[in-house]
């Protein structure tokens, strides 16, 4: 179990292709860090750099205060779980788990103890003599994790470990990984493109885009106080609605925005006077939009373009004036509403976000005590 410090980490291919730009990150002992971002954002490269499978072009990396830039993966003491599991197909589960220990020169007895220990943790005992091809996807995943555990690494690295599993198995494995982290107290760095995995697993999330860290924070911190429009839209599903408008009146605690369609509304976000008259975007999450037929005082009336019935909830797609960007509204219950209905919509001031023309968020007041730890 260890700390990890990345200082101005850089990765470039050739002369021009910059994959990771001057990245700083400090991971505490026992923390579960999820690196999330769209495909091609450099998150897998970053993980492979931490693993030692990819050279570090610039900057430094320390594990427990030791400089490890030039160390091999096994010298760094990391355990890694790959997306395709990468089990050795010609070895039994036992041999797969034992391989690394054997190479490390452990005694036969110690190998047996450790293999059995990790098999017990992951409920692999009945499978030890099977080969990977005789295992289901979930079982292979557990073997891959077991192989990493057995080496008692300082750092666990997961590279999109659940993306090859079907939906229900994914939920189950997510819980298993989360439980494992609680029991072992290990430091985990986990890469995924799935924001749901990030939200459910992470102590802290690192949002990466084009090799830049957009924001680091606890899941709810990112959800409630995204630093910019990218994070705001990346975290949360369906994504946050962004509505273009102009800041007509700045203020310390409230501001007034006129939306492109002409309506003005007040939001609980403080803005500097210098921003007055500048274009802004108003952000509001689908679950925060209040709607109803025959509302007395709606901000808007809008036509329902189509409705998705999920059973436990309903998504409405409303005509925003821009066909490419309908407003999405989440209704927490069933709804009888049909396409073509006209509904009233209002956007509660306390739930609105405001982003300037560069996409940076204006600071929102903290309504709840910030979540600092999720122990």
């Amino acid at each position: 179990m260890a700390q990890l410090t990345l200082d101005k980490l850089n990765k470039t291919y050739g002369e021009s292709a910059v994959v990771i730009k001057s990245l700083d990150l400090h991971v505490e002992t026992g923390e579960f860090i999820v690196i999330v971002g769209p495909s091609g954002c450099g998150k897998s490269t970053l993980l492979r750099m931490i693993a030692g499978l990819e050279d570090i072009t610039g900057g430094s990396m320390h594990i427990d205060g030791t400089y490890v830039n030039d160390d091999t993966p096994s010298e760094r003491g990391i355990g890694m779980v790959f997306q395709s599991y990468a089990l050795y197909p010609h070895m039994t589960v036992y041999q797969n788990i034992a391989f690394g220990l054997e190479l490390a020169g452990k005694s036969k007895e110690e190998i047996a103890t450790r293999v059995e220990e990790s098999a017990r943790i992951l409920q692999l005992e009945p499978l030890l003599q099977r080969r990977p091809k005789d295992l289901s996807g979930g079982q292979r995943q557990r073997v891959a994790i077991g192989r990493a555990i057995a080496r008692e690494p300082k750092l666990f690295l997961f590279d999109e470990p659940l993306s090859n599993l079907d939906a229900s198995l994914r939920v189950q494995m997510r819980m298993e990984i989360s439980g494992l982290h609680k029991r072992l107290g290990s430091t985990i760095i986990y890469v995924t493109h799935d924001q749901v995995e990030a939200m459910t697993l992470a102590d802290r999330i690192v949002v990466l885009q084009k090799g830049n860290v957009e924001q680091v924070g606890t899941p709810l911190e990112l959800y409630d106080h995204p630093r910019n429009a990218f994070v705001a839209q990346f975290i949360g599903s369906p994504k946050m609605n962004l509505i273009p408008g102009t800041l007509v009146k700045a203020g310390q605690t409230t501001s007034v925005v006129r939306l492109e369609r002409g309506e003005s509304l007040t939001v609980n976000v403080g803005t500097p006077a210098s921003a007055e008259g500048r274009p802004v975007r108003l952000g509001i999450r689908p679950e925060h939009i209040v709607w109803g037929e025959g509302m007395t005082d709606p901000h808007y009336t809008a036509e329902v373009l189509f409705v998705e019935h999920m059973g436990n909830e309903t998504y409405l797609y409303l005509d925003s004036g821009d066909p490419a960007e309908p407003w999405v509204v989440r209704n927490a219950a069933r709804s009888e509403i049909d396409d073509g209905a006209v509904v009233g919509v209002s956007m509660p001031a306390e739930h609105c976000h405001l982003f300037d023309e560069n996409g940076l968020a204006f600071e929102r007041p903290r309504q709840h005590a910030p979540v600092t730890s999720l122990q």
Partner: protein
Amino acid sequence: MKLTRKQQKSWSLFWIYAASAFAVLICVFPLYNSILTSLRSGQDLFLTNYVPTTFYWENYVVALVNNGIWRSLLNSVFVATVTVGGCLLVSITGAFALARIRFKGQKGLLFTILCVSMFPQVAVLSGMFELVRLLGLYDSLWALVLSYTTFSLPFTIWVLTTFMRNIPVELEEAAIVDGASLWVIITRVFAPIMGPAMVTTGLLAFIGAWNEFMFALTFVLSGENRTVPVAIAMLQGASQFELPWGTIMAASVTVTLPIVILVLVFQKRIVGGLTAGAVKG
């Protein structure tokens, strides 16, 4: 009249069996004829019927002991085995470099390897002779090992490279994370996975070395260093005008047997090797 489904089926079955029988006949007849001849002696040799008439085992004794074919058999076993061993060792490491390490001229090198495997033997015979002389290997079995390895390598490297490219990179990376050195990765991860391919290519190299005639004839002079194909060609009868057919055939059958046994033993793995791409992590 239109055939019923059932009739159509038996009709097509009939053709399948007829065609198979024909193919088997073409393949097996030469071997059958050798076996037949090897068991005959004297005037029987020139009979034209194709059922065994006599079982004259003396031919085998004459071939193996009196004519010293057993010595050549040992030579052949040595040459073919060392060739296969060397060939697999060089080609699996070479294949690793070609499949996994990026370096300049990689494509050109792979292409050259492919081209070399297409040269006819006779084209390089004199050049190879010079090389053998230069290395002081003339009239030694090592000359054959060298030349056979040279000729087997292109094909083997090519096949193994293709195989290795199909092995997921993550498998190699998992081994690196497990602390495996390059040598351990090649021998303990790649080699077992590529077992079928190695058996197939190794067997082809073995057969090639076992049956080769031209180099064996050119590079080896003395009788005790001859390999089997040359030794059989050099078999002589009692007089200058007699070709000892029975003995020649007995020797030929004897040298075919090891190959047949090898193929039978590795049969399953050859099939596995030919149906490539079966390596999934």
